[in-house]
């Protein structure tokens, strides 16, 4: 699993690549938190288009970031979620708190 981070305006865009499970979750968590701490961004877009596997550990990572961003009065959204992962998000009611879009650009436009 690796992660590519870029700032677009006051939105942090994170492209996740690989498998998001308990083993890789900690690394992703650290990367995202470190970036949020040092930059002035308050919104976040997580791009899942390159994520090949995810289990409930991924929900934990997302919900954890969501809580932090709420404290900053920021917004969070998802992009490029495939069917398999979408099912897990639906199960956990994640879409009730953040929207998902087809692409990063769309996510940023609707931010």
């Amino acid at each position, binding site marked *: 699993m690796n992660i590519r981070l870029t700032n677009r305006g006051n939105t942090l865009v994170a492209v996740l690549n690989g*498998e998001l*499970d*308990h*083993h890789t*979750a900690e690394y992703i*968590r650290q990367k995202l938190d470190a970036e949020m701490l040092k930059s002035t961004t308050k919104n976040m877009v997580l791009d899942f288009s390159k994520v090949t*596997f*995810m*289990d*409930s*550990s991924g*929900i*934990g*990572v997302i*919900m*954890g970031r969501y809580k932090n961003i709420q404290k900053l009065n920021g917004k969070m959204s998802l992009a490029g979620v495939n*069917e*398999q992962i979408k*099912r*897990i998000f639906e*199960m*956990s009611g994640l879409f009730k708190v953040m929207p998902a879009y087809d692409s990063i650009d769309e996510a940023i436009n609707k931010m």
Partner: protein
Amino acid sequence: MNPINEVKLEFVSKSSNEAFARVVAAAFVSQIDPNIEELADVKTAVSEAVTNAIIHGYENKTGLVKMICKLYEDAVEISVIDEGKGIEDIEKARQPMFTSRPDMERSGMGFTVMENFMDRVEVVSEVGGVLP
């Protein structure tokens, strides 16, 4: 009914073995020639069970996780077993969003995911067995 094929895997409770267990389960299940979605379902369910064994059962200490895969004429059965601390209240544990470890950013969705991705999930547990 006796299984047509059966394999048993034992591994150390390291998080890096989660992906390993998934490959093994996927390789076993591919005997029944599933499609990619079905395979992904099995992998996700196995991942949940193995992760639970590592973080809840053994609380990240070192222990052995067993995975037994059985192939029947019309079904595949995968058991993930740990000898860790056990589950006190299974019914509660299976509820969506119940987690004993919110501090670890767990969402309490593991069992729910397993139930949704497999046809049947059985949980058997005895409390006890704290690692030496």
